[in-house]
């Protein structure tokens, strides 16, 4: 990609508009709060603007570089925030299905998954977002987070197993058999 130089406002505006949602959504998924994500969006692009002259397209794709700045910034922000409050609940507006029952079930499930993701460690949450939201390969995640490939693999393995344990109890409270229609006893 052609990269704008810091100071070229029109080019930087184009770059911002192209990548703002990517950064914002990543920040939102890691931080779990829209206000925090808005702050992160600003701060990440200030960092991008500052460090753009040192970005080397020969060493990494721009999106990899942008992911790295975004995730690292969010993890640093999150460290501060962790001391103040817990991972907040998802917004009620998250589910918008027309069917109220499906909406309720979706919301319940979304909340459980969201809470479970929020309880992951920062490092695990980052790899989960990069893999299962952005669809990055393990090698790409390794480059973004600057960690060995084996670490990506073990973090994802641990994260999914943790999520499996967190999400399992509710599912298992209602065995599949209990959902089958009972045979009525006829005298």
């Amino acid at each position, binding site marked *: 990609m052609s990269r704008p130089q810091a100071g070229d406002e029109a080019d930087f505006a184009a770059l911002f508009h192209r990548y703002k949602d990517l950064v914002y959504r990543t920040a939102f998924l890691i931080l779990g709060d829209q206000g925090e994500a808005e702050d992160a969006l600003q701060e990440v692009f200030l960092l991008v603007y500052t460090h753009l002259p040192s970005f080397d397209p020969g060493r990494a794709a721009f999106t990899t570089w942008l992911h790295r700045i975004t995730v690292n910034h969010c993890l640093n922000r999150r460290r501060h925030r962790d001391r103040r409050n817990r991972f907040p609940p998802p917004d009620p507006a998250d589910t918008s299905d027309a069917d109220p029952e499906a909406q309720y079930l979706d919301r319940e499930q979304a909340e459980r998954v*969201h809470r479970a993701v929020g309880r992951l460690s920062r490092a695990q949450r980052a790899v989960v977002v990069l893999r299962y939201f952005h669809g990055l390969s393990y090698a790409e995640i390794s480059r973004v987070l600057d960690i060995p490939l084996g670490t990506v693999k073990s973090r994802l393995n641990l994260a999914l197993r943790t999520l499996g344990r967190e999400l399992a109890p509710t599912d298992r409270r209602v065995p599949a058999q209990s959902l089958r229609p009972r045979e009525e006893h006829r005298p």
Partner: protein
Amino acid sequence: MNCHEVTTHLVAYLDGELSQSEKQVIRDHLRGCRRCQDQVTELLEVRRLVTRSLARRAAHVSAPTGAWEHLRDRLRPRQPHGLCDRLQHRLRLPRWWPVLAALLLATSAVGTLQLSAPAALRNLGQVVGAWWDGARQPGFADRGMQSMTILKPAYLPPSRGTVLSGMVSEDSARSVSQTYLAPDWFVQIRQISPTTDWRLPAGRTVRVLGQQAVLVSGGKVKLARLVMPEGFHPGTPLFSPEVTYSEAKQLVFVLHGTRVEILSDLPEEELLRVASSLTAGVP
């Protein structure tokens, strides 16, 4: 490969991140292991839930409108506004430079400068001198400075080097101190508003500007010796204060509705000459 080894690779297996040979090993194990098959089923469901949840959550949010305008304002170089900003901009000072200046001029510990680099003295003098000049600018002076007539000495003794000067308001703006630092002497002039104690200390009575004044001599004053690093320039780590003690005199009197305290290590004659030259120097 046993069950334990297989489970550590299952997520990567499902993500398609294993080599062909690794995949084959896992497949062979799964064919004969119901327990690991169950794990695959569970992990597939977790992957599905997480992927769906993240996508749904993200789909409902987007960067707020006005984000670019906000960012653009932060990217544009801030136009210097007010004296402090102009000084900071012109001299390329760190944002906390007024703190530096206030430290330098802290009136409880009058400083002398031991400079190894002459350029450092010039730079620092420029900063502090500019700050002093700025004190006369409308809007710079704080409430304390505005509420009293600031006295400025028309006479200062000759010095072997640059005289640094600065002004600071203290005690919740109830007093204002000017400090003049020379390599071989210092003078601190402190003006205190009428809300504080008006009693003069015990000492020898003298006349200054037609007023009764008290000269207290023989006391010790704490000096903070500021050691400037080699190649100092504004913005670099600054100095390490060394506290020393020196003979000093204090002259106290009341003028223009303020209590004036002059602290100095000048000879008595010079001190009285400085005090007698005080005029309303700053509007």
